[in-house]
């Protein structure tokens, strides 16, 4: 077999090697290239460090994406753009959008792919904005409604500013104890301190008061109650002492509020990063449908569809409703629901769900369920409920009521004893001193700091947790169950064995196809740097294969049974290409590490038992169960939970029940939306190593939380005893409080180091 053409070029847009003068690999790339050049952004091709991607058709219900109205009549939308792999990608997307008529302002974040666009709703729609991005090969996805503006940062800033100045004034006052100080300066410094403490108590600490009030109304004493109590007592006492011209604990008040707000801010940032990772949701339903009528076909909005209508679906269309095929055959991809990227054959009698897309062929479908009743919408509703579920409470929230009662009790008792011994004034002093040193600063910081540090460390290693409570739960997990396809394996077909020349010809035939097998062939050809031949008369027949003419040779590529395709010339078979799903390269090592950590690892797959068991023994898993239905997966997990906490890793809709049933559910970021939303944590890279890191992170965080809580209690007990004996004055309180907080920070900082240490130990 000899190559007909020898001239080799590269697709200018996606850098795929191709044969012939017609250098573009496909029409999409050609359009993208022209678009970028016409916009005067040709520089992109010289400055980028990675090749572009082949443009995909824009899908989804963009009309339903929420936008925010701005004051000047424009509106803004936030999109998640996938595929931004270098700074030039950001540059070209940003500039192309900026040059589009009707777009006022664009910012693209290289780090996160978040893109904010402000545009004129009169001249553009969200769909048009998204299609600009899609037309040059990046994949825009809609993002859930933006979180309301949060002013913790400003409250923290104000508290920090006031506290710093407050300390300058009080240090002068304390220094005055030994050297003496003119009374007018003293009173000026005291009144100045009170003036600076006022914004801290009334503005910065306001969230603690409202939180405590919210809790008390429903008879729940959370961590906010002792904090609000401490702030209230400190401030009132401060006003009284200033009027009397005596020392107050106002600097301690400032420190308390600043440190607690800092802890809260760190926790919020971590949680928002997790929410961002999970909320990039594609609402994948089309907005219009082609309905058959007595005389022909009409376009209608999906809201007008009724059960019993017949809709027509062609190449690239998405089903607007659930239904049954009554005519035609097609390759249909239902990844939105099944998570299975391989297409299935639909023929008369097959059931189609809303959101399924037609890869080849055409269908007529009788509508069975519309709107809210469709599988996709019920799934979305379940997901909404799941994301609204309350967060697990902090360990300190359980202690808060006891803490409050005990502290107030001791303070009052000590105050009563001292009143009896040496008068009311000393009694009040001691009561306040106990409340100040036993203030919940250390306790309030102990958990958030450790958890924020743990969440950050784990996120840097590729797992984003939705909240800290789940991370702590993971520390006690002894059983890990994993889905196979898309979790342990990559989930999309890859070429296992193929002859170079056969692969080259096959990839040439599949050049502009969007079939998953075509993508696998093209990816492998690109990896091997094979120049793609130019075919004429390309013809794709649904369910049969692709044929084309290559320099007079009539070639066709067709399915050769499970996991293989056959390339033929006329009736002669030229060769076969084996395709399959491969485990992640790090899978075996990760399983080993988890077992060393005392976690039993099992595979739980819907795939057939023999394949699952082979994969299980290959990886060294403790157990492998195949052929499990979604319900069985849920049941297996509920059974395993009788013996302790269970974690599950999955990616598809068939894993939803398992994800919800498990104590900690991990979803792969490549998985279906429902899986990602139902999960407690998202694995952001396609590998298993992050899961090992998550286990290490959970245990390290658990350790840090325990250490910190132990330290907080030790400190509080010592300090309360000292205060009860009248040994604490404002200066000592001002020194003790930051020391105790620094102790907490020190405990939290050990998490990252400890994770690395644990990972090494398990290897």
């Amino acid at each position, binding site marked *: 077999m000899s190559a007909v053409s020898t001239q080799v070029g590269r697709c200018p847009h996606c850098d795929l090697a191709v044969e012939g003068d017609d250098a573009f690999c496909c029409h999409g790339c050609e359009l993208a290239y022209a678009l970028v050049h016409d916009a005067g952004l040709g520089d992109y091709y010289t400055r980028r460090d990675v090749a572009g991607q082949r443009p995909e058709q824009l899908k989804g219900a963009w009309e339903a994406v929420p936008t925010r109205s701005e004051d000047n009549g424009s509106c803004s939308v936030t999109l998640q753009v996938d595929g931004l792999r270098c700074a030039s990608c950001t540059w070209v997307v940003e500039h192309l959008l900026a040059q589009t008529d009707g777009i006022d302002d664009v910012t693209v974040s*290289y780090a996160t792919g978040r893109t904010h666009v402000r545009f004129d709703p009169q001249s553009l729609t969200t769909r048009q904005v998204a299609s600009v991005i899609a037309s040059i090969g990046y994949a825009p996805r809609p993002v859930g409604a933006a979180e309301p503006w949060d002013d913790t*940062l400003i409250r923290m*800033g104000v508290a920090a*500013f006031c506290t710093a100045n407050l300390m300058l004034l009080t240090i002068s006052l304390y220094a005055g104890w030994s050297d003496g100080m003119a009374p007018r300066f003293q009173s*000026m410094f005291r009144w100045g301190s009170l003036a600076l403490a006022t914004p801290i108590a009334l503005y910065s600490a306001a969230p603690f008061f409202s939180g405590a009030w919210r809790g008390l109304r429903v008879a729940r004493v959370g961590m906010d109650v002792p904090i609000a109590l401490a702030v209230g007592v400190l401030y009132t006492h401060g006003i009284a002492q200033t009027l009397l011209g005596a020392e107050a604990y106002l600097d301690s008040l400032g420190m308390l509020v600043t440190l607690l707000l800092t802890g809260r801010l760190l926790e919020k940032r971590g949680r928002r990063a997790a929410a961002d990772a999970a909320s990039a949701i594609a609402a994948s339903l089309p907005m219009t449908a082609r309905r058959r009528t007595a005389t022909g076909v009409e376009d209608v909005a999906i809201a007008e569809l009724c059960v019993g209508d017949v809709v027509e679906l062609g190449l690239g269309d998405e089903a607007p409703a659930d239904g049954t095929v009554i005519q035609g055959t097609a390759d249909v991809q239902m990844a939105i629901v099944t998570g299975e990227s391989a297409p299935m054959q639909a023929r008369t009698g097959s059931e189609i769900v809303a959101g399924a897309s037609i890869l080849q062929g055409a269908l007529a479908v009788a509508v069975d369920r519309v709107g809210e009743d469709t599988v996709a919408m019920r799934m979305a509703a379940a997901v909404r409920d799941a994301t609204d579920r309350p967060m697990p409470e902090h360990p300190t929230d359980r202690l808060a009521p006891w803490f409050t009662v005990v502290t107030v009790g001791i303070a009052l008792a000590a105050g009563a004893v001292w009143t009896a011994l040496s008068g009311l004034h000393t009694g009040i002093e001691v009561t306040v001193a106990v409340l100040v040193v036993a203030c919940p600063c250390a306790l309030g910081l102990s958990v958030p700091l450790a958890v924020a540090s743990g969440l950050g460390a784990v996120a840097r290693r590729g797992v984003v947790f939705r909240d800290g409570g789940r991370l702590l739960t993971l520390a006690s997990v002894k059983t890990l169950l994993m889905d196979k396809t898309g979790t342990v394996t990559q989930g999309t077909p890859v070429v296992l064995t193929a002859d170079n020349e056969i692969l080259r010809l096959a990839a040439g035939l599949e050049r502009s196809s969007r079939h998953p097998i075509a993508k696998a062939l093209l990816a492998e050809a690109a990896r091997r740097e094979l120049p793609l031949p130019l075919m004429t008369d390309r013809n794709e027949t649904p369910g049969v294969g692709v044929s084309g003419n290559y320099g007079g040779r009539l070639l066709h590529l067709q399915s050769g049974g499970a996991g293989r395709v056959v390339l033929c010339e006329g009736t002669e078979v030229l060769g076969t290409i084996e395709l399959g799903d491969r485990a992640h390269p790090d899978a075996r090592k990760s399983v080993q590490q988890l077992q060393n950590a005392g976690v039993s690892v099992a595979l739980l797959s819907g795939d057939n038992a023999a394949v699952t068991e082979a994969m299980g023994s290959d990886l060294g898993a403790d157990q492998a169960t195949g052929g499990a239905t979604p319900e069985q997966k849920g049941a297996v997990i509920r059974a395993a939970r009788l013996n302790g906490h269970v974690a599950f890793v999955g990616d598809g809709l068939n894993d939803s029940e398992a994800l919800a049933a498990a104590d900690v559910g991990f979803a792969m970021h490549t998985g279906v939306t429902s899986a990602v939303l139902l999960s407690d944590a998202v694995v952001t890279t396609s590998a298993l190593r992050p899961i090992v890191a998550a286990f290490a992170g959970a245990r390290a965080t658990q350790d840090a939380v325990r250490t910190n809580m132990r330290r907080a209690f030790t400190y509080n007990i010592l300090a309360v005893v000292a205060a009860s004996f009248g040994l604490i004055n404002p200066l000592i309180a001002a020194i003790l409080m930051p020391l105790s907080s620094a102790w907490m920070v020190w405990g939290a900082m050990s998490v990252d180091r400890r994770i690395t240490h644990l990972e090494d130990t398990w290897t």
Partner: protein
Amino acid sequence: MDIVIVLIPIALALGAVFAVLFAIAARSGQFEDLDDPATRMLQED
């Protein structure tokens, strides 16, 4: 030493100006994304 009676209020007033500027900056979203500006300067427009 009497000068502190003037200096301290001036210092506080200056500080307050920056606290207000900080609040304006935070409100306009300048602290939302702390990773990108660092890479942005490497791109010429």
